[in-house]
């Protein structure tokens, strides 16, 4: 197979071809590394590329596949990991100066599971610093650009992972989602992103932002890949007390295209003011597709939508202020060169090591928890969270799936968002409440706007009901074929011609 033929495959297709001997894992890795070389100067999807390690892994894995030891669908498939997920021996920076030299001595459980499945990890992807941001512009290692149009952002915070998958710089990637950080960039980059039910994938080794909201998930080319990757990643982990023992760990079986009788609700409160008409149209078209296949689609009032963002920023910032206090220049990471005394060392290291958005959230989080404000802010936010959960509980008593947009617009231009943080925060309106309620959410690409930028639709299910969004997502996806950004396709063709 030629490199461009290989790169056009999805993860599951590639895994199958490797198993069938049509292509080898090292060949796939070489194809990906070639694509990375061509794309990176433009995109900057990666913080660290482990060329040598990837080739070595691929060779070992190829042997184990040939010996029949590795049989899973992802064996030999090159993957990337978001840079807030620890990998032994590979720099893990959270795209922050404060961790620029940090090399974990342990693997995240998700990485462990990937390795066990025989995936080949190519490198670590760029992100908003400590996953705080919606554009991948707050990275200390430069912005990542959208493969569909490099003048636009890839979304965030898993922008590197989504851009890398879109540009065929890997076959799939791990992202993390605290308020939409998988689903929103997936929609901006025209790839599929899944945030599973809270507790489905172990958080051990995921560098925490908002512990009660963080969840690792797959970013891939299609729903089939996401389901297959989720099967590998999901496990009950004794090292993560919030890891849940699920009843089902099989997800690919729901990829039937069968949605007859599936009850789908579209929240009217997701479709009103602030939503780009083209995105709205895409959601309605996706609804039509489901309806035509026998699903029952209705519009309803979800409620509580406008309270999700303020509640989220209180909870996430409060948790972040505590989670990020361990970065102090004592045990690992950046220590300032000049300081006076212990507290001077703390303050200088942290002030020089963290970027503005991270500092903003640490300050806000420290304030809302400080003496005299706890009840007014933090407790109020936790009560709001309970009400949001209740609103979803009511919705899921009537519907199997909630359908809506993943983001109000397609990808904004670079530099547009950071000038007004509050406005940027409002872009998370459709994704954030899903984290507060611990629900699974799936972003599926569904067409492009007139500028040629991808649009994603979001499917939400009740806790532990991933099967419903996988079923619906698969059905929606069948109405279109996977598209690769022209930039990435061009890079592949040019290499081929040489």
């Amino acid at each position, binding site marked *: 197979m030629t490199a461009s033929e290989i790169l056009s495959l999805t993860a599951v297709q590639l895994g199958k071809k490797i198993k069938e001997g049509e292509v080898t894992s090292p060949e796939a890795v070489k194809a990906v590394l070639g694509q990375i070389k061509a794309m990176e100067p433009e995109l900057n999807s990666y913080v660290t590329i482990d060329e040598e390690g990837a080739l070595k892994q691929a060779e070992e894995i190829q042997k184990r596949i040939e010996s029949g030891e590795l049989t899973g669908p992802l064996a030999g498939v090159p993957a990337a990991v978001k840079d807030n*997920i*620890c990998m032994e021996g590979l720099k*893990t920076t*959270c795209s922050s100066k404060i*961790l620029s030299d*940090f090399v*974990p*001595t*342990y693997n*995240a459980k998700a990485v462990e599971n990937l390795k066990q499945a025989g995936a080949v990890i190519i490198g670590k992807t760029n992100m908003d610093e400590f996953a705080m941001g919606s554009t991948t512009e707050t990275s200390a290692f430069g912005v990542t650009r959208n493969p569909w149009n490099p003048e636009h952002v890839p979304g965030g915070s898993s922008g590197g992972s989504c851009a890398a998958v879109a540009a065929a710089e890997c076959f799939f990637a791990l992202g993390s989602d605290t308020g939409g950080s998988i689903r929103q960039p997936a929609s901006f980059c025209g790839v599929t992103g899944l945030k599973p039910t809270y507790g489905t994938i172990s*958080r*051990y*080794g*995921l*560098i*925490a932002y*908002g*512990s*009660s909201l963080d969840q690792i998930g797959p970013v891939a080319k299609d729903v089939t890949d996401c389901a297959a990757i989720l099967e590998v990643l999901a496990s009950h982990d*004794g*090292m*993560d*007390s*919030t890891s849940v023992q699920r009843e089902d760990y099989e997800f690919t079986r729901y990829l039937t295209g069968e949605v007859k009788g599936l009850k789908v609700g579209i929240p009217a409160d997701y479709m009103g003011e602030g939503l780009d008409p083209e995105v709205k149209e895409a959601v309605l078209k996706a609804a039509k597709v489901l309806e035509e296949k026998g699903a029952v689609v209705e519009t309803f009032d979800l409620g509580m939508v406008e309270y999700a963002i303020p509640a989220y920023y209180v909870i996430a910032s*409060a*948790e972040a*202020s*505590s989670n990020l*206090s*361990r*970065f*102090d220049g*004592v*045990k*690992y990471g950046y220590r300032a060169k000049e300081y006076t005394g*212990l*507290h001077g060392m*703390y303050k200088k290291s942290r002030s020089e090591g963290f970027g503005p958005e991270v500092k903003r959230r640490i300050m806000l989080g*420290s304030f809302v*928890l*400080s*003496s005299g404000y*706890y009840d007014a802010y*933090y407790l109020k936010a936790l009560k709001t969270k309970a009400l949001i959960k209740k609103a979803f509980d009511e919705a899921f008593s009537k519907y199997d799936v909630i359908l809506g947009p993943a983001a109000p617009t397609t990808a904004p231009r670079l530099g547009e968002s950071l000038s007004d943080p509050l406005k940027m925060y409002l872009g998370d309106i459709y994704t954030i409440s899903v984290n507060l309620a611990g629900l699974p959410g799936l972003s599926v690409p569904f067409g492009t706007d007139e500028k040629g930028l991808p649009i994603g639709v979001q499917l939400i299910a009740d806790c532990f009901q991933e099967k419903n969004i996988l079923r619906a997502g698969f059905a929606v996806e069948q109405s279109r074929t996977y598209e690769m950004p022209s930039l990435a396709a061009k890079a592949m063709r040019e290499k081929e011609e040489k």
Partner: protein
Amino acid sequence: MSKQYETVIGLEVHVELATKTKIFCSCSTEFGGAPNTHTCPVCTGMPGSLPVLNKQVVEYALAVGLAANCQINQNCKFDRKNYFYPDNPQNYQISQLYLPICHDGYVEIDTAAGKKKIGIHEIHMEEDAGKLIHDEWEDCSLVDFNRSGVPLIEIVSEPDMRSADEVIAYLEKLRLIIQYLGASDCKLQEGSMRADVNLSVREAGASQFGTRTEMKNLNSFKAIARAIEGERKRQIELIEDGKAVVQETRRWDDNKESSHAMRSKEDAKDYRYFPDPDLPPISISDEWIQSIKEKQPELRTEKMARYQEEYSLSEYDADIITGSKHMADIFEQVTAICQKPKEAANWLMVEGMRLLKEHEMEMENMTFSAENLAKLIVLVDNGTINRTVAKEVFEQIFLNDIDPEHYVEEKGLKVVSDEGALKSAIEAILAANPQSALDYRNGKEKAMGFLVGQTMRSMKGKADPGAVNRILKELLG
């Protein structure tokens, strides 16, 4: 005329639990060890690491709470206490603020005025911090996380104590309860039991409490007593001078017998507690509480009663023996081997206590094997050695844990049972001391004691004093 003041004291007692592993990770809690050799990503606050609660910690906390007559919060959870310090690897300590595991209990202490209940406000579970070693050479500090994550319970009393004596009685009572439960060894000097003293003074009869200070760094009962006295005086002087007592934390320096305020501009004392999102709450069922109650080992009062009943010890003896769980353990082990409870009790109470005092040791440092003391008791009982020799042997057991059988054999300390040898020795003593012999015959009983002593000396203590008495009387008869 100077005013009368009343001292009001409450205690915060930290106790390291006797678990094998730390509270949130599977590292050993073993004391000592080179710096950072009992650490892992969790207890050093590595990015991405997560805590998982050790069940035994909850069980010990429950056991202590129940023994201290507490109510149990059947739904309890952990909170984060946020503050920056290098011995605190995450820069937050996982503790309990909003729903501590136990609350509203009491222990009863004996005071000069009779029995008194000291209220327990709450008991909560938390993690210990690491250790800071100050490096004089480089003028820096070194952090060792071996103790980081060792489980603690903090027992917060009500401000119910009025004197150092009551404080000591309360601490001794707590220590006994906890030692008997096996929840901790409670060694003050090694820091497995630490007490912070909250103290205020008020004019006698006043209904309002005065402003309190918190005193830290108290690592012996003596230091606690001295610190209480020092702080009481300091606060009274301030009040008499018309100055205000400042609510603050002070550090006691036992060498200087004075304290100083621990204050810093960078120390805002605003801990921003919030529920730890990494740890699900704990639900304690009635069945669980019941099973802890059933598993509760024999506590001191029960043991005292049993000793009097089963071993016919006097109340006084039983009281002393059970005064330390460690002593009671040795006593029971020795008795189990030699079946001589009274002898065992005597050795421990008389010679044992004497040697502890002489060597300024704590009860817990009495580490000889019960088997050796049991052997000694048997040696005395069957007349192999006499009591004088036995005391010497006991000291060797106490200090070096020697095997008394070997020791007696090696040193030739057995009682001389050869009647002829004894008789000729006594004849020699009588010949050398004719005046004493005459005195005895003239009715001076005291002379007998002298002659026995002389004989024992010449036999190097190895004679049976009974036999010496008998033969002397025969010869002088």
